[in-house]
Structure formats: structure tokens, C-alpha cells
């Protein structure tokens, strides 16, 4: 097979298998004039991108169409990046190894804000103009999607279109429209984008105008053409049983982050944690039929040869047919020698029993995500997990033979006090203490190992905390140091390990998450001055970003350290996720008073997502 890179280059770079394609189940098609070529890009390295479920679903879905050939594109690692820049080698798609520039579409999935400079790298290496405004008829249509498309504004200038919502429902209409325009023989980019902008879930940013007031906040946001919508309603796939799914997963040669088959059991989450964007944007909860999942599991495993299958959802314990599904998988796995991985299970009697059956408990650890140390703080964030729950779960697990516990927390949550922070080490100590109380000395195999990690809270659009001020870097670091110090003061300090990260990345993430169009200048500057792979600790450098803010005269504090008033127009207000602004305001109010909200299964709180006409909202 012909490769885009020479032997010389492939022998020089780290992990050349990232760039050769040709994996089992990768899709190859015969090219013809009518074929729409779609380059589906995950803007990070191959091993990360190949692990992403959503991108695999879109790949399978688009390739089901005979008139579309969807191929994959990932970010070249820094070593190859340098070579491609120096030797002016255009970025290529893995399957055909053809330049991305020759494609009809370049679709980029936006999973985290820290990939934005990688997006610019993709455009740059492809030889596509950075700004939508500068592109011509020969350039691919650059379309973004994924969770970050729920506030596309900081990168709006770089994209021609955004797909807002779940890909399963709207791509056919977009591709059909493109085909009509392309086959007409007089393709006009702007005309096509204008028409596309009228399709459900599609946002064509260049046809929208923003105005800002003296205080820098938005005063208006509206389309420049009358026939374009003022609000874009997210696309939702209401019937997951009918939706396209992967039956022949691509089998990477390299060991990717998720080297396994992934079964998406449901979409959405009933819990309503107030910091969690996924919990709001994927409402309402929709389940896949258990029998359907059994079939999909078998197909995926048989066609890939994977030796592991993992359940995917925001909160697997809430899937109503979990016992049936898990029993089926355990039986099937036993015959086929497949491992089962069950992330995001709440620790309780059922999950402990399941974990005992599927994994070696000596090697596994229990994971709790209380997110906050004190009950008061957990009420503020609506995390329905009590200290009692945690101690009960941990106690049962200790008696069952587990000795390792992982705990996840956030620092910098709204209304947080030092007392709330102090509750984190206290909770860790309680868990350790419980172990030593429950397990007699002679039965212990060394110490209990408690690993607590904290991240810094970043307010996200479409959450009740979208109006909240984010802590400053100094505050974060002070808090982490405070918690660390208090950890060491605990009686069982030697059984506890505490980890936290630097806050610079969180600050940037905070700026970009709730940013507006003015940030595109910052992004471009940062990329042009060396920022790339910002999501990677080893490649993140703060300097180009600091410089970018200085040079563009944009004040980061405006985006992160400021509490918004609830009547401010937010850059993402033009997107309608079903969940209403009023509901988020109500939740914001309740948060400040420490009042909790029941989950969707127990009680409907009227968030607005019932407009989609299905899912949990109609299961009561």
C-alpha cells in the first residue's frame, strides 16, 4: 500500500504505526466522482483518538452510506509535526493516505477545550486557511461537533459549521444537501453554508453577528440573514435501539488507551450534579435495550477479537437492566475468555459482588467520586452521595478483601470554605480508620492504601454553575496546599496519598470553556508561538498563552474570575439544549442555599428536556 510518509520519516518518528492505517475493519472504498469524502478528525494522538467511542460511531454511520467514504485523521505528534512543517508534507487521512485538503468535509470532534491548538495544527498542516472567512470553494467544509460545540464561540471563526447535538440524526440531511450543491456543477461555498445553516442542529457561525457593550459583555447575537434561526436546537437521537452503532470496531495495531470493545448502554444521566456539563447536555436519559446490547456485545467481540469489553455511560449503576446485562456478559465472557470492565459503578452490595466476579480484587481498587469533602458542599453540587454511603461501601469492600481506595474531589467549588476543604482529609482518615477497625491485625496484608486526587473546578456552559466565578490560580494552589497539609496531620496519614495538578491548565480550560469569539485571536497567537498538545503535561507550556493574552489585550480575568449576573447574555445562549435557562437559574439559586434536587428517576424536576418526547421523562 502507498503511504503518505516515506520510509525515512517513518523510521525516524516515534510509533510509526500511528500513521499507516490499514487496521482490521478499517473501511476502504472505491473512489468515484459522486463520492463524498469525509475526513473525521479527533485532534489528539492516534492512541487517544482511536479510543473514543463517539468518533467510532460516526465513522461506522457515515460509511454505511454508499456515497460517503469517511476516513480518520489524528494529530501528528510533535516529532512528526516538526518534519511535516519543515518538509511541507500535507496532513493526510489514514485510510487512503490522501491529503485532507482533497476531502469534501473535515469533521473535527471537540471533546475538551485543551485540544483547540491541535485543531489549528490540523488546519495548518492540511493547508486549509485558518479562518472560515478566507476559505474558497476548493477547501473542505470544516465542521465541528462534540461537547465543546455547546459553546463553539471561542473557535467559531475557524469553523464553517458546527453540528450541535448527537450525530446520529442530522448528518444525512447535511450530506444530501451537500450532494445536491456539489452535483449542480456550480458549487458555491457560501450558498451551501447558508442553506446548511437552516438545517436542524447546524450552526453556521460566519452568518451570525456579535455586539459587545462597554463592559465587554454581549449586547446582541443574531443572524445576518433573516432566514437563519436565532436559536439552534440540539439534535437528539431519541431511539438508541434504532441508531447506528459499531459492529465491526477497528482493531488498532498500537496499544491504544481503550484497547477494548465499548458498549454504550445508555445516554444521559439522571443525577443532575450541578458541575457536570454532560449531565445536562445529554438529557434526557435514554437506555439501549438489554437484548440489543447482548447482540452488539457478541458482534463487536467476534469481529474484533478484543479480549475485553467495557460498559460505557455516565452512571452505569442507573441502567435499569444492569443485573441482566452483567449476568449475560459474565456468562459469555467466561466461555470466550473476555474480560469485563465496569467503570462508573456506584459502590454497593451489587457492584461489589459483580466486581468480585469479574476482576482480581487484589489488583483492583474501589473508586469513589464524592467530589467534595463535606455534606454541605455535596448538597451545593447536588452530589447525592453521603459519608454514610461511602463508609458503608468501603467497609463492605474491606471485609470482601479490597485494600485500595481511590477518591476524587474538586477544589474551588462555589461557596467553598476552609471547613469544606478540611472535610476532605477527615473523610480520607475515616475510611482508613474503618479499615483498621474492621480488619484484625493478623488478617491485614500491609496498610490500606487510600489515594485522594483533586482537580480544580472549572465552571462549564449549560450547567447551573455557568454563572459562577472560578477561583484564581493562587487560590487553587493555596487550597491544594491546605488540603495536603491537613492530610499529613491525620492519624492515618501514612495510609493516605494525595495528588493534585498545577492550576494553569484549569485556568485556560476555564477561559476557553466560557469564552466568546474574541478568543480566536488568542488561540491563533498561542498556536503560532508554539502551543500544541496543551492537554498533555509534558507538552503544555504556559508562556505562549500568557504572551497571547498580553499581545491581544484580552484579560483572562473577565472570563474566569467574574461571577455573571443571570440577566447577562452568555455567548452560548443561542443554543437550546432542551434544559431551560430558568431551570439552570433555579438550580443555581438552590445550590447557593445548599438545597438538593432529586434525580430524574425519583422525581421529574421539570428541567425542560421533556420536549424531546421520550426517555426517562416519560417513564414515570
Amino acid at each position, binding site marked *: 500500500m502507498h503511504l503518505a510518509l516515506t520510509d525515512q520519516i517513518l523510521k525516524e518518528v516515534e510509533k510509526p*504505526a500511528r500513521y499507516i492505517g490499514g487496521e482490521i475493519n478499517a473501511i476502504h472504498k472505491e473512489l468515484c466522482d459522486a463520492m463524498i469524502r469525509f475526513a473525521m478528525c479527533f485532534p489528539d494522538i492516534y492512541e487517544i483518538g482511536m479510543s473514543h467511542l463517539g468518533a467510532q460511531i460516526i465513522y461506522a454511520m457515515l460509511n454505511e452510506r454508499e456515497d460517503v467514504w469517511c476516513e480518520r485523521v489524528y494529530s501528528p505528534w510533535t516529532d512528526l509535526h516538526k518534519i511535516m512543517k519543515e518538509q511541507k508534507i500535507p496532513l493526510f487521512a489514514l485510510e487512503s493516505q490522501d491529503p485532507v485538503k482533497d476531502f469534501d468535509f473535515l469533521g473535527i470532534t471537540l471533546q475538551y477545550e485543551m485540544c483547540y491548538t491541535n485543531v489549528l495544527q490540523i488546519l495548518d498542516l492540511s493547508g486549509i486557511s485558518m479562518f472560515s472567512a478566507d476559505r474558497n470553494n476548493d477547501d473542505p467544509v470544516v465542521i465541528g461537533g462534540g461537547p465543546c460545540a455547546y459553546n463553539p464561540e471561542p473557535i467559531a471563526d475557524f469553523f464553517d459549521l458546527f453540528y450541535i447535538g448527537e450525530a446520529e440524526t442530522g448528518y444525512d440531511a447535511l450530506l444530501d444537501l451537500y450532494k445536491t450543491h456539489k452535483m449542480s456543477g456550480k458549487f458555491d461555498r457560501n450558498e451551501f453554508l447558508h442553506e446548511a445553516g437552516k438545517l436542524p442542529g447546524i450552526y453556521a457561525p460566519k452568518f451570525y453577528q456579535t455586539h459587545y457593550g462597554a463592559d465587554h459583555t454581549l449586547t446582541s447575537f443574531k443572524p445576518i440573514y433573516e432566514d437563519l434561526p436565532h436559536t439552534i436546537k440540539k439534535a437528539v437521537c431519541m431511539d438508541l435501539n434504532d441508531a447506528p452503532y459499531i459492529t465491526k470496531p477497528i482493531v488498532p*495495531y498500537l*496499544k491504544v488507551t481503550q484497547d477494548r470493545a465499548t458498549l454504550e448502554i445508555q445516554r444521559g444521566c439522571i443525577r443532575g450534579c450541578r458541575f457536570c456539563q454532560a449531565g445536562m447536555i445529554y438529557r434526557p436519559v435514554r437506555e439501549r435495550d438489554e437484548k440489543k446490547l447482548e447482540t452488539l456485545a457478541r458482534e463487536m467481540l467476534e469481529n474484533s*477479537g478484543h479480549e475485553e469489553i467495557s460498559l460505557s455511560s455516565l452512571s452505569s449503576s442507573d441502567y435499569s437492566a444492569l443485573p441482566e446485562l452483567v449476568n449475560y456478559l459474565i456468562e459469555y465472557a467466561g466461555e470466550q475468555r473476555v474480560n469485563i470492565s465496569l467503570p462508573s459503578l456506584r459502590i454497593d452490595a451489587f457492584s461489589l459482588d459483580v466486581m468480585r466476579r469479574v476482576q482480581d480484587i487484589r489488583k483492583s481498587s474501589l473508586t469513589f467520586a464524592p467530589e467534595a469533602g463535606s455534606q454541605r458542599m455535596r448538597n451545593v453540587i447536588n452530589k447525592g452521595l453521603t459519608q454514610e454511603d461511602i463508609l458503608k461501601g468501603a467497609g463492605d469492600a474491606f471485609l470482601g478483601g479490597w485494600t485500595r481506595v481511590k477518591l476524587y474531589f474538586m477544589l474551588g467549588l462555589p461557596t467553598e470554605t476552609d471547613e469544606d476543604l478540611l472535610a476532605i482529609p477527615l473523610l480520607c482518615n475515616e475510611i482508613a480508620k474503618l479499615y483498621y477497625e474492621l480488619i484484625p491485625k493478623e488478617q491485614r496484608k500491609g496498610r490500606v492504601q487510600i489515594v485522594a486526587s483533586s482537580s480544580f473546578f472549572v465552571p462549564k456552559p449549560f450547567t447551573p454553575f455557568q454563572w459562577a466565578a472560578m477561583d484564581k490560580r493562587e487560590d487553587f494552589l493555596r487550597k491544594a496546599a491546605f488540603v495536603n497539609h491537613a492530610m499529613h496531620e491525620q492519624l492515618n496519614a501514612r495510609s493516605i496519598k494525595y495528588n493534585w495538578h498545577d492550576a494553569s491548565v484549569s485556568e485556560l480550560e476555564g477561559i476557553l470553556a466560557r469564552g466568546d469569539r474574541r478568543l480566536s485571536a488568542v488561540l491563533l497567537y498561542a498556536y503560532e508561538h508554539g502551543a500544541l498538545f496543551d492537554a498533555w503535561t509534558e507538552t503544555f507550556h504556559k508562556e505562549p498563552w500568557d504572551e497571547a493574552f498580553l499581545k491581544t489585550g484580552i484579560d483572562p480575568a473577565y472570563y474566569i474570575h467574574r461571577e455573571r449576573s443571570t440577566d447577562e447574555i452568555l455567548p452560548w445562549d443561542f443554543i437550546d439544549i432542551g434544559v431551560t435557562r430558568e431551570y439552570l437559574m433555579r438550580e443555581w439559586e438552590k445550590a447557593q442555599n445548599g438545597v438538593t434536587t432529586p434525580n430524574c428517576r425519583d422525581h421529574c424536576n421539570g428541567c425542560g428536556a421533556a420536549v424531546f418526547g421520550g426517555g426517562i421523562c416519560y417513564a414515570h
Partner: protein
Amino acid sequence: MRIRMKFSKRGSLKYIGHLDTMRYFQKLMRRAGIPIAYSNGMSPHQIMSFALPLGIGDESVGEYADIELTGSVSSTDALAALAACSAPGIEILSFKALPDDAKNAMSSVEAADYEIGFTNDPDLSAFSTFFAQNEIVVLKKTKKSENMIDIKPFIFQYRVAEDRIFLRLKCGSVNNTKPELVMDAFYQYLGIDFDENLLKIKRLDLLTVNGQDFISLNDIGLEI
């Protein structure tokens, strides 16, 4: 029953490293439904071992992996099932049952045949005078140490064709001699800079010793 598979690894698949090749085979066995045996214990794995790692970027038409079966399958059926779910570039060339007393591929391999091509046209006619030296001393680096050693005894055979060199080299657990090492020494002898990325290495076969002779690892088993 123990089985020896011979396979090739060509084209772009030469960029798949040794560990990844092993993982590829594990999944291939499952896709093809080969009744492979698993080890006991908490995390069972397939009973499979490879003869000798191949360098990233090197092609081969003579790689070997031994596996153990729990059920029976004919060579023809197994080869057909494997071919149906193999990646182009990795072709299973034979599937043979090993005699009970046969050593596994990894411990029996004694020599490897290589074909070496060049992208920078060095003067290959000098290879015979290079080889005629009393000794060919190179600096051999291992993880732990660096040693000057004479590799001449480990070059069992060579043949220079027009634009390529064929080498039969010692390999296995002791005195394993990589073709790059020989070429490095040759380039030094020629007085030109050596860049192993400019070599095109193809492994032709792996061999074991039978009395006085070298025989291919493929000559040990029998079709079933």
C-alpha cells in the same frame, strides 16, 4: 497439541513493533476461532510464543510463532480461517503440528537469514575484503554494558548480489547479532556515515541446528 505457524510481515506492517505484533496475533486467534489453549491462573493468557523479535521497519517472510491447541483443526482449515481475518501484509504461510520433543521456536532458533537493501548505494564490492579481515570488532551496547566484541564468528555466511547483501547471522539468546551491527561495521570500514534508517532489511527465514546443518524452523513440524 503444539502448532508452529510461519508468517510474513510485509509492506506497511513492518512498522508494527514486536509487542503489537503479539497483540495482533492474540486477537487474530480469537477472530479466526482457532482453539488455542489458555494458561491457568487469575488472568489467563493464550499459550503463544514468538521465535525472535523483528526490528520496527524491517520486513520478513520468515517469522514464527508457536501456539498450543485444545481442540483439533486441520492445517488447511486453520490457514483459511486465518487468511479470512488477517490484515494484508501479515500472511500465515504454514500451520504445522510439532513433534512432542520439539523445542519451542524461541529456544531453538540459532540463525537468521537476511536480505539487506540500501537506499544510498554504498560500494558493496568491498564487502569481501571487509569480511576477509582477521576480526571484525564492534562496540556492542546492551542495556547494562558496552563491550568490544568480534562478530566475525557470528557471520555464518554472506553473499553479495548486485545491490544487496545476504547474511546468515547468529541469533537467539546468546551472541544475537543484528544485521544493523554488521552493516555499521561495514560502513565504518568504508569510512562513511552509518544511518540504520537507510537500510532496507528483510528477514528471509529463521533456522535451527540439526547435527551439522542449519534447517528452517518450518521444517520441524508436519501438516495436519
